[in-house]
């Protein structure tokens, strides 16, 4: 199963389109190249990106490395990458590796998208 289900550009804030990328199933070394590829494509359209992990069941260190690499690319492009909907199991890996300190993590993608609203202070 491809780790990236789909993505869309949220235009709630006309001045700042936010891309929302949905992950599902398992994300590990065997399929993280797919995330790299899709993320590069998304980054060309928006530098404000949310990765929705609601349907992500399993993540290993390679998958985590891929997400951190995406964050690096987003920051280098002058934007940010925020996460939403981490399941308890996926959150465990973020806590263990201290990766949760690198990301802004929200309960759902709506909250994550809203956090990019330039008119609303976080």
């Amino acid at each position, binding site marked *: 199963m491809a780790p990236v289900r789909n993505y869309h550009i949220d235009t709630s804030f006309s001045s700042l389109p936010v891309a929302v990328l949905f992950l599902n199933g398992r994300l590990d070394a065997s399929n993280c190249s797919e995330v*790299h590829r899709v993320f590069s494509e998304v980054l060309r359209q928006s530098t404000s990106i949310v990765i929705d992990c609601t349907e992500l069941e399993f993540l290993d*260190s390679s998958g985590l490395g891929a997400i951190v690499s995406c964050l690096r690319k987003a920051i280098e492009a002058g934007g940010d990458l925020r996460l939403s909907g981490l399941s*308890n199991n996926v959150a465990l890996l973020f806590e263990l590796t201290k990766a949760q300190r690198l990301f802004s993590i929200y309960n759902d993608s709506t909250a994550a998208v809203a956090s990019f609203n330039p008119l609303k202070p976080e």
Partner: protein
Amino acid sequence: MTAQQLLHRSIPSNQNKLEKARMKTLIIIRENAHSWLRDTFPGQHPLLVRICNKSFLEFLFDFSIIAGAREVRIVSDGDMAEIRDFCHDGGRWGLNISYATIQKSDTITQIHNKNRRFYADERIIVLDNLLFIEFNKNESYTEYLASSHVGMLLSSGQGSVYLDGADQQSILEQCGSSPHISIPELGSLPEYFRLSAEILRQGSRYILPGYSNEDGCYIGRNVVIHKGAEIKKPVIIGNNVQIMPGCVIGPEAVIGSTVIIDRESLVTGSIVMHNTFVGEQLEVKDKIASGNRLMDPATGASLQLVDAHLLSEITAEGAVYEGIFRRLVHVLAALLLFMAQLLPYLFLRPFVGKPVDGGTGHEHKIAQLFNRLSLDRFPQLFRVFSGSLRLIGSQPAVFRYAETEEWPENEMDARIVEQFCTLHSHPFGDIPLLLKALLNRKESKITAS
């Protein structure tokens, strides 16, 4: 101080009467009870699961000793092989342990009747289906239990404690104050976690394993705490443990036996079960790590990690055999590669390595061909024969796992591929990976060491 010594200290003035009023213990184990422990810590009998580095059964033995019992009978309606292997005759606790089986359908009266000869005319304390009993080793139980009336002492959903056998009220005067004794709630992982922290905090009430020069700090045998590691009380560390530089262990950390905590990792408010490796720069906070499994008692989440460099089970035998087998496969593959590359190497080598400026376009093409055929790695094959280098693997190796993929753009990407392949590789699986690396030489952006 051992439980035996404590018992001698606690024997009061009517010692002669107590010696006559000997106590025995009957431990009843029901196979289907405590199934949550079998699910949480598979492969172990529930009574042998450790809490604060000591099995539940040993805590029951401690209570028996403090209660004045020297003879213990363990009865079960299931397989007792594991229990027998662990306890033998009970000599190491100063106990005389015997075993008996019961039927699943047996009532408590039938169990008593079947063990009537063990009772004889003596007082008996029955620990029915219990995992743990709260007590205080500093209080006196012997006289209290010997002088109490026969009947139920404590009962809860977690099991019960009652007295049976001869009623010795006639020979002993009723003891004034009753010592602390209770059955804790223990039916789920959060309750196990809470009880473990409580035992550690109240360490002076129990007999915990390890050396203890100060309250709240119990250290086992063969524990290496490297310079720069910090240990914060209360903490208990098992036997054969390595704590690497920069680690912070505690407060309220339980580290089992045969554990390695790698550099700069933090373990606080957590339990690391025996035979567990915790990788570098990790944070285990309010969790239970058991082998490659990480559990969060607060949320009930449980994650089976596939990354051996993060969290893994420490095993010995399998790794040794696989290592020998892998080396054999690598040497044979290197021999085939050696035969295939020998003539091209001898033929092309004289034309390679000349200064580029002075060279012609023809020489440059030869150099390209030389690399594309992986002849630049040819001299390293001798190191595979000598056993000092793997043919393919994580760095250092003749060919890196990272060279099997086209996508890695930098060293971090390369390490991701290597970690995945290291975990999922098999000695025979290295052969197709080698062919992939050989065919991928044209595209490879990663260099071998």
